[in-house]
């Protein structure tokens, strides 16, 4: 039976290994994208959709600002940059110049609607200015040697209103077209904008590194061609930087902890074989976990890989405990040792699975994946330990180590016991009181930036590009709703006129909305009426203009076309045109509750400015200010509370398990880890460390592992407690080395996690022997 089980398990592992191996040949599909890993805002599906669409767009975009003292040099440098990128894989489009004939495209598209299109300023002028003023202005414009673009005869736009409206269509913006270049002017430098669109957003880690290398190479080409400054912005840079940082840390922290563990093992066992036996379950667990995640999701989050493999590291316990039996002298029977440890590791794996089931039940993609990853990995590691190790450890040579043995005996004898050390009891009570105070001082902030702390220069560069281009604020926008398209557009216009006032006051640099390209039918009709009355109709000035210039026949022609023309411009017409390409994510279209659109703002400074915008939105029907990152942080706070409760539930579950096995002595198993977690939280509170979701996650992990130490000590077999203490200590030190070192990470989430684990695991390890029964000695 033993052989059959072990054989079956070998087969299963082989299948899994082949599956993972086949994927690994093409590079593991690891997703380092940050937005994808975030939970969806549960309360706001529409906002999610808006954010998703914007994120998809943004994820593919890279912007270069190629700066030089003058346009020609900047343009040549931009071309050099584009030439370097062309033909490289992964880039869909590279746009160093405005290839499409922008103005004639605009002219052609809006031409049928020219008598119903007005800017805010034109509207105000036509409403209030006197006829002679309008007439004078129109005459002067015709005389000007240069002026507004008119791509047709004088009769199509006699007073220049259409040309003027086209130029200010869509908003102020900071981008200007000069010649065939898209240009931003800032002080003395002229920046030519080069748009690069990647083939896909959220490429794998390896692909991203290649893309970024190509992009940096292109930037160098631009510098060589005379650019004095090349600024870049794009999700891919951040994503690649985050991945590189994680990789760097994994290699430094990971290698450091691995070396530490190996050194410790060699000192204890003076032989590599026990170490290999202890590590084998982790290896198998990791392969199975990766295989399962790939099978279920088709890809892995970077965070899952980092955290998940660390969690599976817990499984080193099983192996340690097993081989620790060989340290004490005496005959070795691998199967007997398995029988001895089976209850311990059974309880240990049961508590672990319970703890990660809690994680897997959260509606948070990364955590859910991580939870499942850990559950499968741990179960596989456990099966490996239980089914394979006895075979593999057959005839393990005596590795008894007198130094270690003596140390263990001394430790067991000298360790203060809760039962007979008054000092210990007082110290623990005092520490608990202090911790209780610390816990009341805990503060929580689940900002999304926890996942990733961008390198300062990169962040600065991005912000500089956004500032110069007047890019919209990230994850913040107005969500506008209406029962139909018309109501939506009218509501957007109501918001627009408020934002126009904010713009005039300087509190924002620009805003973008579909209604700025497609006015509502009501506005189109009103504008047409206004232009007819003041410009083209019998009471308008255009007739007089042509009379004054001696061309009365033209007046009649204009009036008749102006009268004849009227088709309402609809959003669908605009969405079909290539003109709308950069703005399509502003239109969310039909949803069950009606139609929805997004209005983005840019150049808003400070939280007061944002709060003010929120007020502006709140005052209008159907308009809502969405701060997606803020909402997410709030929802993560909510998650944290739920996780907190779930953790308590997990604790209760573990308590039930422990009680079932140990009866009234169960408190000796539960208290050390409980106390350690409580004290850890207290210390974090006292030190004013941000107690976020990841700290709680660390506590959950500590609960899982910490309880194991007490279990091993309680479950000591006929052999003395020294083997159990050794197993627990090896596992605790290994954990401290592998997780505790995460406290050195630059990623806030990992750092918080590492710090928590360091405190809670350290505590559990130290406290567990204190709660042993006296007769255990």
């Amino acid at each position, binding site marked *: 039976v033993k052989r059959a089980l072990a054989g079956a398990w070998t087969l299963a592992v082989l299948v899994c290994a082949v599956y993972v191996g086949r994927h690994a040949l093409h590079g593991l599909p690891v997703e380092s994208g940050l937005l994808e890993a975030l939970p969806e805002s549960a309360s706001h599906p529409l906002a999610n959709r808006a954010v998703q669409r914007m994120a998809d767009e943004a994820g593919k975009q890279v912007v270069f600002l190629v700066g030089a003292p003058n346009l020609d040099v900047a343009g040549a440098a931009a071309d050099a940059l584009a030439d370097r990128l062309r033909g490289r894989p992964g880039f869909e489009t590279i746009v160093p110049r405005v290839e499409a004939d922008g103005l004639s495209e605009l002219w052609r598209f809006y031409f049928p609607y020219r008598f119903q299109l007005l800017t805010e300023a034109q509207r105000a002028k036509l409403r209030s200015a006197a006829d002679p003023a309008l007439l004078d202005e129109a005459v002067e414009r015709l005389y000007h040697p240069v002026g507004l673009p008119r791509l047709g005869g004088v009769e199509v736009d006699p007073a220049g209103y259409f040309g003027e409206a086209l130029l200010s269509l869509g908003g102020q*913006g900071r981008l200007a077209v*000069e010649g065939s270049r898209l240009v931003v002017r800032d002080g003395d430098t002229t920046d030519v904008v080069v748009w690069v669109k990647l083939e896909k957003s959220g490429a794998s880690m390896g692909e991203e590194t290649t893309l970024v290398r190509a992009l940096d190479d292109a930037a160098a080409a631009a510098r060589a061609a005379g650019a004095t400054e090349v600024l870049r912005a794009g999700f891919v840079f951040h994503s690649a930087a985050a991945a590189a940082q994680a990789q760097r840390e994994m290699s430094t922290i990971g290698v450091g902890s691995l070396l530490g563990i190996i050194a410790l093992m060699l000192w204890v066992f003076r032989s590599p074989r026990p170490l290999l036996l202890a590590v084998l379950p982790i290896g198998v667990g990791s392969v199975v976990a990766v295989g399962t995640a790939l099978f279920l999701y088709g890809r892995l989050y970077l965070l899952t890989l980092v955290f998940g493999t660390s969690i599976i590291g817990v499984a080193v316990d099983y192996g340690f405990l097993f081989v620790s039996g060989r340290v004490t002298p005496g005959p070795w029977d691998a199967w007997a040792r398995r029988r001895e440890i089976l209850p311990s590791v059974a309880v240990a794996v049961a508590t672990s699975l319970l703890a990660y089931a809690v994680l897997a039940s959260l509606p948070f993609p990364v955590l859910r994946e991580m939870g499942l990853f850990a559950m499968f990995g741990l179960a596989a590691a456990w099966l490996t330990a239980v089914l394979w190790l006895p075979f593999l450890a057959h005839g393990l040579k005596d590795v008894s180590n007198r130094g270690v043995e003596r140390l263990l005996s001394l430790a067991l004898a000298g360790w203060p016991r809760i039962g007979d050390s008054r000092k210990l009891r007082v110290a623990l009570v005092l520490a608990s009181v202090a911790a209780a105070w610390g816990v009341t001082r805990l503060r929580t902030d689940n900002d999304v930036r926890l996942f990733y702390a961008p390198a300062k220069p990169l962040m600065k560069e991005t912000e500089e590009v956004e500032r110069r281009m007047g890019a919209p604020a990230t994850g913040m926008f107005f969500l506008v709703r209406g029962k139909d398209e018309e109501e939506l557009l009218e509501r957007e216009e109501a918001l627009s006129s408020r934002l126009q006032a904010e713009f005039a006051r300087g509190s924002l640099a620009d805003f973008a909305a579909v209604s700025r390209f497609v006015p509502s039918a009501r506005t189109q009709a009103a504008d047409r009426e206004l232009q007819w009355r003041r410009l083209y109709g019998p009471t308008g000035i255009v007739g007089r203009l042509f009379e004054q210039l001696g061309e009365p026949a033209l007046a009649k022609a204009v009036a008749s076309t102006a009268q004849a023309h009227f088709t309402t411009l609809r959003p669908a017409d605009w969405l079909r045109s290539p003109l709308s390409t950069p703005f399509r994510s502003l239109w969310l279209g039909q949803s069950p509750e009606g139609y929805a659109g997004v209005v983005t703002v840019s150049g808003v400074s400070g939280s007061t400015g944002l709060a003010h915008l929120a007020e502006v939105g709140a005052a209008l029907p159907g308009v809502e200010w969405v701060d997606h990152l803020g909402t997410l942080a709030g929802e993560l706070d909510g998650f944290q509370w739920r996780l907190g409760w779930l953790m308590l539930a997990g604790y209760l579950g573990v308590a039930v398990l422990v009680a079932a096995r140990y009866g009234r002595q169960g408190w000796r198993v539960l208290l050390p880890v409980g106390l350690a977690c409580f004290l850890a939280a207290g210390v974090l509170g006292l030190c004013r460390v941000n107690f976020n979701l990841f700290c709680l996650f660390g506590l959950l992990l500590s609960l899982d592992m910490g309880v194991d130490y007490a279990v091993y000590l309680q479950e000591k077999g006929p052999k003395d407690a020294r083997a159990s203490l050794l197993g627990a200590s090896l596992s605790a030190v290994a954990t401290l080395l592998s997780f505790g070192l995460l406290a050195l990470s630059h990623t806030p989430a990992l750092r918080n996690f590492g710090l928590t684990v360091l405190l809670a695991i350290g505590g559990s390890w130290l406290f567990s022997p204190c709660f042993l029964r006296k007769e255990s000695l």
Partner: protein
Amino acid sequence: MRLLALSLMVLGAVDETSLSAIERGLTPFTTLHAHFLQKKSISGFSKPLLSEGEIDLTKGQGIYWHTEKPFDSGLRITPQGVEELHGGQARPLASGQGAGAREVGTLLFSLVAMDLEGLKGRFELVGASRQPTGSFQVALRPRDASVRKVVDEVVLQGKSTLERVTLREGNGDQTDILFTQMQLDRQAPGAPASPALENGRGDAGKAGP
């Protein structure tokens, strides 16, 4: 595409000699003041629109185009943009970005300043000739198709200074401008050519979004 670029380079090389000769023949200046006579023929109109006035230009700063007849109005063109001056009030031509207006505006500025180097970036020389008498003619076409829809061709004529500009627009309109009484550097170099221009820089600086 490469062939086209090559042929352009050859063309450019041919024109380069006459162009540099023209440039050498020009009197250098920092500020310029002149009287202008403009004839704008609008396609579809039976009669051209005639106007005259004064211009003031300071290299690197801008141009003030002051029409005196048949009415009084001004156009101020600086690197920041184009403004209409109407009854003492300045108004940017085309509210908002007005990129197109700026494009055409900077063109006029470069033309009157005879900034041939600056023009070469965006224009293709379709002809340049210099007579032994010293009079020259330069014909330019925008390199960019979209700009050609607005300005199709520009012809510059003159001797030691610019004397005549012809602007042919894509819509069929044509503007001929004759400069007379040209005065170069009539004030100390560096001083503003006209109060209006000085004013314009200040305004434009503040008006930027």
